């Protein structure tokens, strides 16, 4: 955290110093909410891992305006994101699209969970097999105990 912010400040001081411009918000709260949902999906390209909603860099401002213009014109979220994606490429999407390069990334939860379950099942099967097999010595003792108990 410390380092991250330190660096952020050095790089993008205005991003933290300003609070935003009331004029850029849409008058209709429902549309503003949609625009904000979209904005959280889009990266401020000159910032470090910030969405355009969390940055006051000039580029973020421009993108926010662009998103709001399109939302005000009645476009749906998917269309707005597609438009920005076409203009700026994959880098602008904070939720990376599924491509050859991100297949493994998106598969991580399934691979981790599936791999973990497979390992647990294998180990369990082996443990059960080991526990089931008694050594001759143990078998003899067990028989003795059985006789004793009877």
């Amino acid at each position, binding site marked *: *955290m410390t380092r991250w912010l330190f660096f952020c400040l050095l790089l993008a001081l205005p991003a933290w110093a300003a*609070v935003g411009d009331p004029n850029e918000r849409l008058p209709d709260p429902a549309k503003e909410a949609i625009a904000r949902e979209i904005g959280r999906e889009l990266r401020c390209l000159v910032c470090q891992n910030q969405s355009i909603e969390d940055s006051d860099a000039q580029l973020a401002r421009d993108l926010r305006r662009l998103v709001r213009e399109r939302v005000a014109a009645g476009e749906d979220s998917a269309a707005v994101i597609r438009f920005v994606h076409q203009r700026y490429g*994959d880098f602008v999407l904070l939720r990376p699209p599924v491509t050859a390069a991100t297949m493994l990334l998106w598969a991580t939860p399934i691979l*981790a*969970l599936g791999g*973990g379950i497979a390992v647990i099942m294998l180990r369990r099967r082996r443990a059960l097999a080991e526990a089931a097999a008694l050594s001759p010595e143990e078998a003899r003792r067990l028989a003795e105990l059985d006789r004793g108990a009877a």
Partner: protein
Amino acid sequence: MIGELGHFALALGCILALAQAILPLIGAHRRDARLMALASPLAGAQLIAIASAFGALLWAFAVNDTTVSNVVLNSHSQKPLLYKFSGAWGNHEGSMVLWVLILALCGGAVAGFGRDLPSALQARVIGILGLIAAGFLGFIIFTSNPFERVWPPPMDGQGLNPILQDPGLAFHPPMLYLGYVGYAVTFAFAVAALLEGRVDAAWGRWVRPWSLAAWSFLTLGIALGSWWAYYELGWGGYWFWDPVENASLLPWLIGAALLHSAIVVEKRESLKIWTVLLAILAFGMSLLGTFLVRSGVLNSVHAFANDPARGVFILALLMAYVAGALALFAWRAPKLGGTGIFAPLSREGGLVLNNLLLCSIAAVVLVGTLWPMFADILFGAKISVGAPFFNAATAPLAIPLVAAMALGPMLAWKRADLAGALQRLWWVGALAVASAFLTLLVAGYHVWPALGFAAAAWLIFGAAADILDRIAAFRRPSQAWNRARGLPRAAWGGAIAHAGVGVMFAGLAGMGLATDALVALKPGEATRLAGYEWRLERIRDVQGPNWSARRATVTVLDGARVVTVLEPEKRFFPVGRMNTTEAAIHTNALRDLYAVLGDERDGGGVLRLHHNPLAPWIWFGAVIMALGGGLSLSDRRVRVSAPSRKAATAPA
């Protein structure tokens, strides 16, 4: 002079650490009691050397010694004393000294409190800690000397970044390092166990308190950082899924898995191999975090990231320690053996599920953090992995984890009765569903907050149900009080920590219902947000110790009643020529009213106003979790029965 003494103390500490690494390990291998007996005194001597070096660094900052380049770069004579001290560890070199100091403290603690440990195990643990310390002291001495001189000395220092001049942040790094370094001790125990070829309940009893302590400190450290981001950055956000935040989350997740599986080792002598692996991984993740923060590998955002030589050095240390430990693990782990048999539906089974899900979440966070770099190298693809990915990819794993959290403690060891456990939790489930519906009813169609409140109710009341069940409050109410007092503190600690997670979920869900407004107001004008009237009274100049500011006064009214007066500021720090925004926050524990001052124009100002329901619960929850960890730590059994193994072997 003091600086040179500090530098010398570091070098001396490095030599002592090397001796501490080599002699006791050889001693333990050869069963040579004299060499093993050197472990504790060497650890003590190393602690004294490192503490002296750290003291010398603090001294240089306290007297603002401008012949030390570290002081010049990170301090200033006009700074309040607290921030002079925190400046000592608010930079790469100083924070590394703090890191090795905490490591030396841990070594000293194992030496001092570990007299009851079997002497070979103790010697090995202290030896491994010495090995880690020697590596990092070498790193400091060869690449990051904190006592470097400048000549001629400048008139004054350049100052600490103003946003770091904050009490929350002054204690954020020490807390984090206590967590990170605490995992060095569990790592040392794991490697020592592999060397010995033995893991038993006594080992589990030693590892559990260390993993509990490390985890509790890490929880507090992460919470402090997140809280600071919330009030200092002025965006009302508290978690950004930034690579450096993720780097602290990784050991936290693996550490949470570790402290749960250590319970199984201690109580059931099962999951031994797995626990040893987790102990290695937890420290590996701590080192990885250190590496990511200081190497500048990631296309990210760190002040410490500037010198590739440092990155290579830490990477080499990371490889040596973790790869070495993993190789040893592959070689020796099968010897540890002894997986107890348990039914899938049992307390053990629940803890295995906990481990599986926590580790899967950690895998997602790890891969997500590193993937932009891999994608660039492997496919030449420039991609971003941000909050929407992490939220989407971790939620499906977090939901079953939360579901199992209330259920797990209700299950019996070995073989459990699921129907019975569910029966005892029916009212908890009903409350959770009711919370979700109530949220939808009151706040409108917000799916995630509704789920969040359901999770909160499930965990908080689930923890209550666990305690009520243990003290048999319904079956034998007359003895409930006595039973409650007799309940081991570890049981209370576990329930409290789980409830703390629930409290945090309530905070997260509340923040999902936050509303805000961005308005330009002139003095005397007002706006409405969340049922309150927010009136800007005036904006004026204020003078601080090392800053000047513009301060707005905003009165928040509920009808005619004044709720609070908020005074957000825009500060200007002449040293460093920087601006910061100081948010004004009023909390009543159920909601935060939050105001930030922006640009001024036409005699008025731009204000961003937030209404954040339950926001403080996020950090309350974290504190409760850490308290739960601390309470478990104080359990009598942790302190008293650990020595049993030595007592048994003493006559030999």
